[in-house]
């Protein structure tokens, strides 16, 4: 299982995380800033979350191995 941390102040609203892991990430309607739908992921969701963290162009996603 992994724990997911997001930094709303760094987020630039690219939405790449939502494209990589739509069950875990969404965006605020008004400014596109990341919304975490769940703060952990396991099993089949993990690869998408890891991809999201690598793709994030603002380094706003941090993964902690739990």
């Amino acid at each position, binding site marked *: 299982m992994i724990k997911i941390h997001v930094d709303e102040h760094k987020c*630039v*609203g*690219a*939405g*790449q995380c*939502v*494209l990589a892991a739509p069950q875990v990430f*969404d*965006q*605020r*309607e008004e*400014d*596109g*800033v990341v919304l975490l739908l769940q703060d952990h992921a396991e099993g089949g969701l993990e690869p998408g979350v*890891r*991809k999201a963290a*690598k*793709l994030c*162009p*603002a*380094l706003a996603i941090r993964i902690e191995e739990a």
Partner: protein
Amino acid sequence: MRRIVIVGAAVAGLTAAETLRDEGFTGAITLVDGERHAAYDRPPLSKQVLSGRMQRSDLALKPADFCASHCIEHRLGVRAQRLDMQTRAVVLETGERLRFDELIIATGLRPKPLSDQPRLSGIHMLRTLDDAEALRADLLQARRVAVVGAGFLGSEIAATARELGAHATLVDALELPMLRQVGRDVASVILRTHRERGVHVRTGRVVAEFHHQHERVKSLTLDDGEHLDADVVVVAVGSIPNTEWLEDSGLTLDDGVLCDAYCRAADGVYAAGDVARWRHPRWGISLRLEHRVHAAEQAMVAARNLLGAAIPFDPLPYFWTDFHDVKVQVFGRIGLHDAMTVTSGDLAARSFTAVYEHAGVITAVLGWNAARAVRRMSALVGQPVDAVKPLAAIAA
């Protein structure tokens, strides 16, 4: 022991190294880079770093112990000078040879100077953290700033210079700022936005002459004879892929390192990021993207293919730019003659979305202060227009 050498330790190089370990590679990895700072993120350089909202400590791409924890040998501040494919070695500027079994090329870009750009203090180009800090120091003293080139970088720098209180003028050879990136209609909105925020814009103009006093730039003359006083000039007219070190390698160089659809330049040699030109598998054209997200995305694909996968690199191009209080985001590629339809808001609104089409196919979607909406529309790119009409209902 099997050894993979990665040349270039910015986003693409680091992501490739991390992916190799994630995929279970246990051999040796050596990362080489001429940059003397530990890897940092570049998009904030022209925005938050220039404005002073972010410092170098905010830009680290990876935790300080990343290379140690991933068993990566990291050679900072040493340039690769040559690639010897016969002996499969990277020759460093120190003369040292790094033998490899596989190689990943991620040497990125550097700014392209104007053809007759003089060497004067006060004239800047922006690529590195050192460049950004030097430019910020100069901007804080500047009264009048001229930015040559109104693409993303130039527009962001001019907006930041204005925010810092300078009189800013943006000069571009084309008739509108960011014309090639966003098309005519949105480029017109960008022009209006700059003017509303007090950035002066001179389009369809090039610099005819630089003037100086005591080896420091003082003013510019444009090709129509207009004289612009400027104590700081920033040149942002494009970039050049860093491929000189590969010139006698036998690899094909064509505005970047030419790769196949799998990011492979030769047997066991891959390229990723700004320096890589590859054949887009769906579109059948050769492309080189200079966008932040794809540097990471392409590095992941290149690393996995190096380890034996066969994944075509098939990205949906994405870029964003922030200037004044505007965020423009584009998924897809906008052609200069694509037809545009506004799908929510209107071009005078604080926020709108638009769809671009060519030959009956949606080529791109654009959001203007509409981050969530445009991301939701990104799946439309590549679809026939008829399948998703009426376009005006899309964003609802």
